[in-house]
């Protein structure tokens, strides 16, 4: 608290409001890589504490045997303006942490579901999750070296993705590619709003 800066916090301007986009997909699909490729800070990791009982594991006997565990969330930041900050959250890949997604998903602008070309089906639960909750999402096919190169329409068919939902090919390691993915998502959100109201 010695610097001049922190001695006059009362003079700070308006507090920005935040908005979030989720990056979901199966284990190792490239979620953290995508968050990192567009974030202005290196991806941060925060942990949530939770009990095994709340994970729905072995809890038939009630709540006697709670053990605490942690789940890490990766996120990045894009400062849009002095009034608006965008956060990108990579969702935990592990299935038993899905229940957390409700808090994560609440109030999110939309989601990118990363499909891993080496094992397309691992993103299906994410697709299902966002469909059920009516959260706008797009599918980004992360093309791994050496894996079969899908056409977007093949992915649509394989995962039964509805016609209105954009499917794009990407390389999560490349900033411009990840940018395109996010732009496609936000444009899709705009289009969805136009239909709804």
């Amino acid at each position, binding site marked *: *608290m010695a610097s001049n800066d922190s001695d006059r916090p009362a003079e700070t301007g308006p507090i920005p409001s935040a908005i979030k986009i989720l990056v979901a997909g199966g284990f190792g699909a490239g979620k953290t890589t995508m968050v990192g490729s567009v974030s202005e800070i290196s991806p941060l990791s925060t942990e949530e504490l939770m009990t095994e009982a709340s994970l729905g594991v072995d809890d038939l006997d009630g709540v006697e045997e709670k053990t605490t565990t942690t789940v890490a969330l990766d996120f990045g930041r894009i400062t849009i303006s002095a009034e608006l900050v965008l956060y990108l959250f990579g969702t935990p890949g592990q299935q038993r942490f899905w229940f957390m997604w409700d808090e994560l998903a609440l109030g999110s602008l939309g989601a990118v579901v990363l499909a891993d070309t080496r094992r397309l089906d691992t993103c299906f639960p994410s697709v299902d999750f966002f469909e059920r909750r009516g959260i706008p999402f797009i599918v980004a096919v992360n093309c791994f070296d050496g894996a079969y190169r899908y056409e977007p329409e093949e992915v649509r068919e394989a995962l039964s993705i509805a016609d209105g939902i954009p499917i794009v090919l990407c390389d999560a390691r490349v900033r411009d590619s990840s940018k395109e993915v996010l732009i496609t998502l936000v444009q899709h959100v705009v289009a969805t709003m136009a239909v709804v109201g």
Partner: protein
Amino acid sequence: MPDEYASGPAPEEAGPLVRPYVMTWGRQRSDTVQLDMISVVIAARADVDEMSLEPEQVDILSLCHRPLSVAEVSAHLDIPVAVVKVLLSDLIGRGYVLARAPYTTESPVSRDILQAVLDGIQRL
């Protein structure tokens, strides 16, 4: 202190972990501020009585001389989000910190905001 975090019950219902923790300070509040992971917080005052604060709260205040989300505070200080929320609620209650709620489903995002987001991503 870390042991106290670890023995607390589930955080995702906010209450159970939060309440025992706050009670250890003997000032449980009924008006606990509802903080989201992406609520943005900033230190509000320079005249802080550090002796009346938990060490982690002093850390939070020095970190928050610029606006940061609850998630960022948690990541930088390596304190779980649920605990950060409790520490912040108390700071907000004392007027040491200001918070701004995020855009959520209860505050629908306008077309202007979406356009600003698009422009911001394009500028990257």
